[in-house]
């Protein structure tokens, strides 16, 4: 599947190639036969729920775990035998893994010290990197454990940059931060990516985060890569129910073809039209923002009748829960609307719904 995604970007150079990579822990397959290619300079994000194997995959890239099977190639050369301290990759840990007994400066200079670079040169480079990650120079000799969460994050970044890796690996580095700080740092990371031109491989369980920053996204489930594509592709063409559900709150209706080009659901009255459907059982996925309240049933390709159950303000939008029979549908509107106690009709166009297989 990655082949198709590659076609459009064939001008870029292939950097990393994973072929049939598998990792087994005590008989349990943490990662199952993954094939994936990452381009030079790309910001590639792997998204998946916890336990989907994404951290294991990342640790194999970093050289901390060895694949049980398959190979990882960097520009065509196998990385399998190369230990972590020799690989041109650098991992930014979820825990950040800062060295608690060192100052900010010592943390950043660590990789340089390991290469036996002279102290003066080390310090110059550290200060330069501190500017890049927007840390004040005065922090140079500060105890790293006395820094705030965001500052620690920047130290970890600078430390990774100091290693000057070709590929930076990120293991959910922002997950412990508060919402506002996370948003700021997401943008900064994106900027840093552009400024440095390095390849970033980033893992997160937040699709939102992935959307903001990534060139391409891979979705993982139970050790498999289920879909790889641009944020746009993932968003608009999820490959299956899992991917579409993972993308956030969506309305999903299980359907089967009724033989007349339309689809029927067991627990809902009426039938639906879908653009370009295969003739199998599956699901119709409708995003809340594509559902709307209809003045008359004919205002949209498909419609349902129900009652408003609840409404929530999302700040910029308003979300309504509409009960249709036993089912609850989510409808999002830019503005608040008031309804009497009576029935409402909701509907959507065939072009806004996606059909996915099981």
């Amino acid at each position: 599947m990655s082949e198709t995604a590659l076609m459009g970007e064939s001008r870029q150079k292939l950097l990393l190639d994973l072929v049939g990579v598998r990792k087994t822990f005590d008989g349990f397959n943490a990662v199952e036969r993954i094939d994936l290619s990452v381009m030079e300079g790309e910001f590639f994000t792997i998204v998946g729920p916890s336990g989907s194997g994404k951290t294991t995959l990342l640790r194999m890239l970093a050289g901390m775990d060895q694949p049980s099977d398959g190979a990882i190639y960097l520009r065509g050369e196998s990385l399998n035998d190369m230990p972590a301290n020799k690989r041109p990759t650098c991992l930014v840990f979820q825990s950040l893994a800062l060295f608690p007994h060192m100052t900010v400066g010592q943390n950043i200079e660590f990789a340089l010290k390991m290469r036996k670079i002279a102290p003066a040169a080390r310090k110059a480079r550290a200060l330069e990197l501190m500017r890049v990650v927007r840390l004040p120079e005065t922090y140079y000799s500060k105890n790293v454990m006395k820094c705030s969460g965001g500052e620690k994050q920047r130290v970890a970044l600078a430390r990774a940059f100091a290693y000057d890796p070709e590929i930076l690996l990120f293991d959910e580095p922002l997950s412990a931060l508060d919402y506002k700080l996370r948003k700021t740092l997401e943008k900064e990371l994106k900027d840093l990516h552009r400024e440095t031109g390095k390849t970033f491989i980033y893992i997160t369980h937040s699709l939102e985060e992935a959307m903001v920053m990534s060139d391409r996204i891979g979705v993982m489930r139970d050790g498999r890569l289920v879909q790889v594509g641009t944020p746009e592709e993932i968003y608009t063409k999820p490959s299956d129910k899992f991917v579409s559900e993972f993308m956030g709150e969506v309305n999903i209706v299980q359907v089967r073809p009724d033989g007349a080009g339309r689809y029927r659901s067991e627990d809902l009255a009426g039938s639906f039209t879908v653009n370009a459907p295969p003739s199998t059982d599956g699901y119709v996925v409708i995003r809340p923002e594509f559902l709307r309240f209809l003045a008359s049933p004919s205002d949209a390709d498909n419609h349902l009748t129900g009652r408003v159950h609840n409404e929530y303000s999302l700040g910029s939008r308003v979300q309504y829960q509409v009960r249709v029979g036993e089912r609850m549908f989510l409808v999002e509107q830019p503005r608040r609307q008031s309804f009497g106690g009576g029935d409402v009709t909701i509907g959507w166009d065939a072009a806004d719904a996606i059909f996915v297989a099981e």
Partner: protein
Amino acid sequence: MKIHALQIQDAAISGTAKKSRGPFLTPGARCALPVIVLLLLGFAAPLTAVIAYSFAEPHSFNVFSSFTFANYAEIFNTENTVWMSFLWSLSLAAVTVLILSVIAYPIAYGMVYVFGRWSGLVSILFVFPLFISENVRLYGWVLFFIKNGVFDGTLNLLGGSDAPEVLYSPGIILFGMIYTYLPYMLFPLVLGLSLLPRDVVDAAKDLGASRYQVWREIELPLAMPGFMIGLLLTFVLAVGAIAESKVLGGQSVIVLTHDIEVSFTYAQNWPLGSALAVLITLITGGLTLFMLFKLDLDRVLGRK
């Protein structure tokens, strides 16, 4: 800030529960009281008694009723060779500590990182000998190493060659001390190494550090509190060791505790023995206090 909050909370609990009693002691101090009383009566007072005895007339029991520096004068008399015992005890202890750290480090490392669910069993196997009287175990070594003992006998059975003679030498005393004090080095080391987050080691490797560099720059400094406790504990206990020299070593060297013992037995001179005990206490106690005040015990024990 956290501490402040806890104090308030304690105050709240005690305040509501024991309003009538008033804030005589905080709950913490109240809980500490039994230990403190025990240590005052069973540790501080005996040490005072030793100090008092060390200033009593030589060969007498006139404690608290006579005062003289004669015992210390005797020890520091240039003709007295008791310094040799000090030297032996301290250097044997120092070498024991050095060798023990080399022996115990890989085991501790294995217990923390490699042995997984087996490390529980491994630690029980290492704790257990602490509960067997030291004399029995050391005598077991005599039976092993002596001529026609287990080692020699087995070699004779197998190939007819004699086992090397190792008993009754300073080397075997050292061996005995290493043997006896192994758990006291091992467990603090395990504690120390488990203070060290796995991620931090991985990060260092990832940043290009070789195995040795990881050990020197990360593992060692971060495991240092546990390491220090182990060093201190084994050193202090080894300075007080006596059975190894007597049972295994054939007294090939005379250790300090032996001199103290002779003062209390053959020499009938409790005051002199006390003066020696005071000196050994000064050394070990000083070292202990110095180290303990450098350590953050909450971090080491609480793994916070």
